[in-house]
């Protein structure tokens, strides 16, 4: 008996002379190469993939803006650094993107944070007291023990950076109601609750929530939408080579375990 893959998304009709070659491919019912390709943009196609419907123009515009905002996380972003690390040693190019994916998957500025933040919008709603209570419980280690900060916020900052505010303003204008509008209005209150600045991950999470993407879809989208910048920076560093890339030659200080723990305590780090 032939084992099959069950799917709601993808259907193929085979060429008459070769069952291993598709003559027509349909995504959620639409003919991909015959009908969609000449007409739809990248954002509309992405929306169709994850929602099984084509978006209204305003939703497509928002998703496109999110894709642009994420396309280059910045050369100092850990995921981009990971890709560049692969490149300077001339690892495989896919290794650069695998490194960017792995490092971009985390709970600080990564895809896990976006997924959790999308879920938090659903759990806590627009009730500032609920957000305050969650932040307090997190701070006191009562729940979400894996999290060292409120998802969607950056514990290394005191307020949202200018680019984060610019992204939020742009997104909120494209989608005046919804989570983005609330975030735009309540940002300062939420930052007081979190004890640190709103992060791009939080802004993007609000956009994904407004677009109706569940946390797991938001996580996937965030992972791959950030790869273009990592790829371009990796190629640049590949050309320049390891000699012109930081090695942090003087940074490492190897200490006996007891001295190390004492130092971390003095620095106020978690042990």
């Amino acid at each position, binding site marked *: 008996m*032939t*084992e*099959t*893959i*069950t*799917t*709601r*998304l*993808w*259907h*193929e*009709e*085979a060429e008459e002379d070769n*069952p*291993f*070659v*598709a003559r027509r491919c*349909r995504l*959620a*019912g*639409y*003919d991909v190469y015959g*009908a*969609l390709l000449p*007409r*739809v943009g990248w954002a509309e196609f992405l929306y169709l993939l994850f929602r*099984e419907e*084509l978006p209204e123009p305003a939703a497509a515009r928002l998703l496109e803006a999110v894709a642009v905002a994420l396309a280059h996380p910045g050369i100092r972003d850990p995921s981009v650094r990971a890709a560049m690390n692969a490149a300077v040693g001339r*690892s*495989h190019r*896919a*290794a650069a993107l*695998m490194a960017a994916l*792995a490092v971009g998957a985390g709970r600080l500025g990564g895809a896990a944070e976006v997924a959790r933040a999308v879920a938090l919008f659903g759990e806590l709603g627009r009730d500032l007291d609920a957000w305050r209570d969650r932040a307090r419980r997190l701070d006191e280690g009562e729940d979400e023990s894996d999290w060292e900060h409120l998802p969607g916020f950056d*514990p*290394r*900052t*005191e307020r949202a950076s200018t680019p984060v505010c610019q992204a939020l303003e742009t997104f909120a204008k494209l989608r005046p109601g919804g989570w983005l509008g609330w975030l735009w209005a309540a940002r300062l209150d939420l930052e007081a609750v979190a004890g*640190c600045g709103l992060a791009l991950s939080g802004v993007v999470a609000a956009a994904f929530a407004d677009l109706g993407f569940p946390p797991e879809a938001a996580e996937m989208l965030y992972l791959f939408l950030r790869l273009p910048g990592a790829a371009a920076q990796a190629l640049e560093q590949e050309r320049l080579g390891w000699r012109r890339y930081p090695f*942090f030659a*003087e*940074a*490492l*200080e*190897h*200490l*006996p*375990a007891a*001295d*190390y*723990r004492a*130092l*971390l305590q003095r*620095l*106020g*780090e978690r042990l």
Partner: protein
Amino acid sequence: MNPRERLAYFARHWPTDKGVWIPGRAVRYRERSLFDDFGDRSWMALLIYGVTGREVPEATARLLERVWLLCASYPDPRLWNNRVAALAGTVRAPASLAVAAATAVSDAEVYGARPVHRGMQFLAEVADRRADDRALLAFLRDRLRRERALPGFGRPVISEDERIPVFLAELDRAGLEETDHQRLVVRIRRLLADCGLRLKPNIVAHVAALFLDLGFTPQEGYCLVLLAFSAGILPCYLDALEKEEGMFLPLSCDCIRYVGKPPREWSR
């Protein structure tokens, strides 16, 4: 220090007790010299020291190697992690990427590395309760009702676990078969069977018990099995590589069982 001061400090300093390469001279590995102190030790002993910071007898390292060898080295490309390596081989992707991707896939929820972490947490929680049989059974039933699974118990595809007798023989040889946590696994199995539940321990329960008996934390146990699958992964990659490209279990169009929206027209 506030966050900004900490950022400034760590921009120039990375204090560590894990080790350092002294170019052209030596490698410090935690508190030891890699070349002087580990010249006659096994790689597994070094891995345990690197992960846990504790030096173990060579017999313990050997036992962990047996766990890797017996429990995680199945060169069968139908297994989901190995299949990633075979797919990489059939499209002629590099071996390093095949191993990396398949290793990442091995950190799965229903098999692989994550059940070890959860299994250790679960057994430690049960052990801490020191409950009598009745209370323990109530705890197990409640857990099953809430999460529909017990970490380390049950198995996808089949219910028997052929690794257990081999593993227990290894433990027996090492004198570790009758330890507290192994006895706990046997007790849970008996309680589940007595009340008609067909949930049996899989190898993870026994490995988790061993790791707890050796004093490892769940995080350490998880780290110590992450690379365990490589001896199964690489043969699957090479198996596909030595055959004609694109021939690893190809799917024809009629392998797709489409259950989505009917064909529709673009109308905008």
